[in-house]
């Protein structure tokens, strides 16, 4: 395997409604910033890969316009996944492992604001048996939270603590959307939103974009003073039928973590759009109390759909760069109730 490192990371500020700029206009400064920070000359970037979903824009082929943010002339080697950008990073990492490129730019974008994301995500469910029930993502997450509370020692208080800690951490993150100091007892006094979830247990609705540059071996060493080396990356999927899964666990995260070598982790950036999912993910990855979780504030502070997973890998690299971590973990999730999960383990020199 070739040594591949994250060498730069850039993101927009996450906002509830980005209505002054379209996707390309959001991406252009982010892509430029990622390229500049990377130290890899733009014309030497060997591969491009992006992640996004047509169902957010409400337009088929919406990723085609995004190519305009790259200045793809002369023509470039480029690909796209209809997945969170974290999986685009995986495809780029594979391309570099094949020896087809020595560096890659990965980006993703997602604006939830043109539609109603709680309704849009219903269309992600099996159209024959699940979507007709109209079960929205918050309701499905509530079922999962209930399964967790009933079958383990985890409590609603722990969930509120997760929410308070993430939003407090996010005060130090200029790109976060929902930040502040919250008192756990006051949070628990709030009414249920969808029982057992309260509003604070749910991610905000965000618009945003992220770009990352990765590079191999000497290209990374030459470009970056402190490459965040990818020591392991793996992803796994579970059954789509919620009744076939134990929703209180995340077996795909455990397996991906095992394959990616998720041990001796100092900082973990977990993509948990609901507070109870952070508890499930910490259990799945056996992350103890000594592991710092989500210094960025995580998805509970900013959750641009299709972007938040890639952002976790960027924030994990930030933890390496600022010296908080020697080994950091970035995690991404997709599908209802953590159906699909990716784990990326980064390490400094």
């Amino acid at each position, binding site marked *: 395997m070739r040594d591949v490192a994250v060498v730069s990371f850039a993101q927009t500020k996450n906002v509830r409604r980005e209505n002054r700029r379209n996707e390309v206009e959001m991406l252009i400064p982010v892509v430029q910033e990622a390229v500049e920070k990377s130290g890899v000359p733009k014309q030497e970037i060997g591969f491009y890969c992006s992640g996004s979903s047509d169902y957010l824009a409400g*337009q088929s082929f919406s990723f085609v316009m995004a190519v305009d943010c790259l200045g793809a002339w002369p*023509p470039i080697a480029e690909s796209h996944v209809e997945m969170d950008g974290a999986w685009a990073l995986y495809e780029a990492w594979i391309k570099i492992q094949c020896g087809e490129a020595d560096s890659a730019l990965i980006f993703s974008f997602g604006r939830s604001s043109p539609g109603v994301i709680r309704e849009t995500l219903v*269309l992600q469910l099996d159209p024959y048996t699940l979507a007709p029930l109209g079960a929205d993502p918050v309701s499905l997450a509530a079922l999962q939270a209930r399964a967790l509370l009933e079958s383990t020692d985890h409590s609603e208080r722990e969930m509120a603590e997760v929410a308070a800690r993430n939003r407090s951490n996010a005060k130090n993150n200029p790109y976060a959307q929902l930040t502040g100091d919250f008192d756990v007892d006051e949070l628990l006094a709030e009414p249920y939103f969808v029982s057992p979830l309260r509003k604070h247990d749910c991610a905000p609705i965000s618009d945003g974009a992220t770009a990352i540059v990765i590079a191999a071996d000497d290209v990374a060493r030459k470009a970056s003073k402190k490459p965040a080396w990818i020591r392991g990356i793996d992803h796994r*999927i579970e059954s789509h039928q919620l009744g076939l899964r134990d929703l209180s666990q995340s077996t795909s995260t455990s397996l991906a973590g095992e394959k990616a070598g998720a041990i001796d982790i100092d900082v973990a950036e977990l993509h948990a759009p609901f507070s109870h999912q952070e508890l499930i993910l910490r259990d799945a990855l056996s992350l103890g109390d000594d592991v710092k979780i989500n210094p960025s504030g995580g998805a509970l502070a900013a959750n641009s759909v299709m972007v938040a997973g890639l952002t976790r890998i960027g924030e994990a690299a930030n933890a390496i760069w600022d010296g908080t971590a020697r080994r950091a973990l970035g995690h991404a999730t997709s599908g209802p109730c953590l159906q699909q999960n990716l784990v990326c383990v980064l390490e400094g020199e």
Partner: protein
Amino acid sequence: MAEHCAVIGVGQTQHDAKRIDVSQYGLVREAAERALEDAGMTYADIDAVVVGKAPDMFEGVMMPELMLADSLGAVGKPMLRVHTAGSVGGSTAIVAASLIQAGVHDRVLTVSYEKQSESNAMWALSVKVPFQQGMVAGAGGYFAPLIRAYMKRSGAPEDTGIRVALKDRQNALKNPYAHLKLEGIDFDQIANSPMLWDPIRYLETCPSSDGACAMVLGNAAVAKKAPKKPAWVHATAMRTEPTMFSGRDQVNPQAGQDCARVLYKKAGISDPRKEIDCCEIYVPFSWFEPMWMENLHFAPESEGWKMTYEGATALDGDLPVNMSGGVLSSNPIGASGMLRFAEIANQIRGEAGEHQVDGAKKGLGHAYGGGSQFFSMWIVGDQPL
């Protein structure tokens, strides 16, 4: 550095306008199980699954690979979903091959599909305000002016497109899976068919199909144990350019030319017309055969039409093109590119049945998408490179 990768199993569905006898699950399984059977494997033997399809709005399910995890035996495994517009079937095969070439997996199942009858493809293909000026109806509306420009530029005879359509429709009669099988098709029927998007006639146009294509790919150790002859991947390439900018040549796009050039270089090919035995290329409208012959460097600029006219691209020509009947005969959009890649692999494996080119040893699979801006290609051969 890269591991060898070979195609060891190929499967496709019966393509039709409406496959109302199967769900989306049933459609992908029909292709996947035929590919697995061809490779002498079951889902349990597979390490990872790569799914490709064109816009999710064709079926009305957002990111449908999530719901297909169970039916494609992907539970507990890595699963990827590729979408690069019309080129996606080819790109998906390339991503699947790269998982093996990178040495990450030994056996990969890749599946592409479209079930266009679930929605209205014409609607999904017409990009709307505010994304673009609402000036065209469907893909034909976009490509007709490019064809007109090619005719003017090359001085090709007006009936070149009719000749391509006749050849592909006759080839399709030899393909048991083809959607359109027009018995007794002749020149006059095509010439007299209604003009849809001038200069594209009805019978010079691809259909809207429901269908799927699947391949099992393996590394060298796996390929050597395969029950049938493998087709070895010699080279893959992808190139992209923006949809619109001043001075862009949309008739003979730079991205396609560059993609072919780098592909031949990787495969050690210096004279493609001589060294490649046959091609499956993405021709959704008949005139794209001569246009792509030039773009792929098989003919000098403005002379691609001569290959069609002289019969070089016929089943018994010196460079047969679209022996299966091509996209003109079956067009489940997300799968159409993979069908090109799989059909050419079957030619090399000697598994193409009635439309087999005798002794095919090296072949090109090609797909394109968007506004002639996304290209994916591969070369397969009967021996490892």
